[in-house]
């Protein structure tokens, strides 16, 4: 059974905006998925529906077989899927980091001993050092607050986590840190990861699978490498593949593969093409 099943999902906001217009997809256990698309394409709405934070106006979402819109399933749900908000300020409310991370487990009614173990583990995984346990989250720098928010989600041990714009406003090092950390969770601990983002180089470097939304529908869904070869289709939702991919695609006539994702891949590809060409070139030079 797939971990997340979305069937003909529709969502209409009270003001009449149709944010999702019949979305169907499945996400298997252990996938690393990126949700992309222009603002208003429905990505945040979809991710919130998946976590049961918004009640769909049509269709349904099953997480591990549980219908997320059903009453009284919240506690069941948070052990399966966690959502990290873009702005940690909306999420953090305890006066100590330790209590903050422990809030979820406490809601789940776990005994203290077990809770403590979960908190320490989640903090360690998220890179929140124990010396920060008694700090007030409000006064930590933004990067750290985000980690606390992630740790708080992890402490509930969800099988999947959805992260809304993990790299917005972060610099190179911070972005890599957050992404490497998510990647580590995915690789080592077998978590399913879903990120919502506008940063295509991040998508290219980390996500195994990419789903592009446009006006509340799935525009394209497939392996990231394949999705970025459809530049014309992506243009509908104003997404451009990363620069390396774009460059490669203008050189296809020269024998360059159109589906490279990173600079390193493109370098290797150009080396290959050049080596071939040089062989041909020497021959031609002789004629």
């Amino acid at each position, binding site marked *: 059974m797939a971990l997340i099943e979305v069937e003909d999902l529709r969502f209409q906001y009270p003001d009449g905006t149709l944010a999702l217009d019949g979305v169907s997809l499945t996400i298997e256990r252990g996938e690393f998925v990126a949700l992309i698309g222009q603002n208003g394409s429905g990505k945040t709405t979809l991710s919130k529906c998946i976590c049961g934070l918004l009640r769909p106006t049509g269709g349904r979402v099953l997480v591990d077989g549980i219908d997320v819109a059903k009453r009284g399933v919240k506690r069941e749900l948070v052990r399966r899927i966690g959502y990290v908000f873009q702005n940690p300020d909306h999420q953090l*409310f305890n*006066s100590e980091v330790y209590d903050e991370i422990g809030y979820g487990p406490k809601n789940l009614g776990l005994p203290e001993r077990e809770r403590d173990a979960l908190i320490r583990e989640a903090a360690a995984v998220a890179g929140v050092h124990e010396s920060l346990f*008694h700090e*007030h989250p*409000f*006064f930590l720098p933004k990067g750290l607050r985000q980690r606390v928010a992630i740790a708080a989600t992890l402490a509930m041990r969800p099988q999947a986590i959805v992260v809304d714009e993990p790299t917005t406003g972060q610099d190179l090092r911070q972005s890599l840190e957050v992404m490497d950390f998510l990647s580590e969770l995915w690789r080592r601990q077998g978590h399913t990861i879903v990120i919502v983002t506008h940063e295509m180089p991040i998508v290219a470097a980390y996500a195994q699978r990419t789903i592009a939304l446009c006006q509340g529908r799935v525009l394209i869904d497939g392996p990231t490498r394949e999705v970025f070869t459809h530049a014309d289709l992506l243009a509908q939702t104003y997404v451009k593949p990363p620069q390396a991919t774009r460059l490669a695609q203008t050189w296809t006539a020269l024998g360059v593969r159109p589906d490279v994702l990173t600079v390193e891949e493109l370098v290797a590809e150009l080396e290959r093409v050049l080596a071939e060409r040089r062989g041909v070139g020497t021959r031609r030079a002789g004629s």
Partner: protein
Amino acid sequence: MATAPESAAVGVSVWEVEPGERRKPGIVHVVMMALFIGIGIVVGTLGSLAIPIGFVSLFWPGQAVQALGGIWFGAWGVIAGMFFPFISNALSGSAPIPVSAAYLPANFLQGFLAAAGFRWLKADPRLRTWRDWAVWVVIGVLLANFLGAFWGTYVLTWFGLITEAARPTALFGWFIGNSVPSLIFGSILLKYVSPMILRSKTFVKGWLA
């Protein structure tokens, strides 16, 4: 509880202006006043809509907002506390403008008493000692709400909205109905939000800065 060692020396009150510290009113105070009116509108409106009894505030967490505003932001907070009920009452439809206007003195007192009490008696807004608690409960909650209820019910009879005979009952109901949310809501906020406010630029030690 608050046993963690604090950097602030024992006995130094949060109201003390440190040597070399310059305090003058700035744009940030005006902005905070406006934002605080915004918070008051939200809390006041939601409070009234949750239990719609109209002009009588049987469960109205707004008074807590007024008291906290005065404690944290001095005169800016007192002013904010006087005016947000106008808008929240109009939005929730719980009191027409003339009735809101008549409540003004009560709105002033409900913010001012807490503000003055904490400043004069040097109580810590983080509620660290039993003395801080006493100042909060006696002046910020009980006295402020009693005077508020006294004036408020007077206004109601004045507008003919309740009978003269019902006034003592209404006064009692109002007093309890406002004190309970104030005590719960206000104490929690003082305890948990004050640490953030005290370290921010918006905190007012005197009346204006």
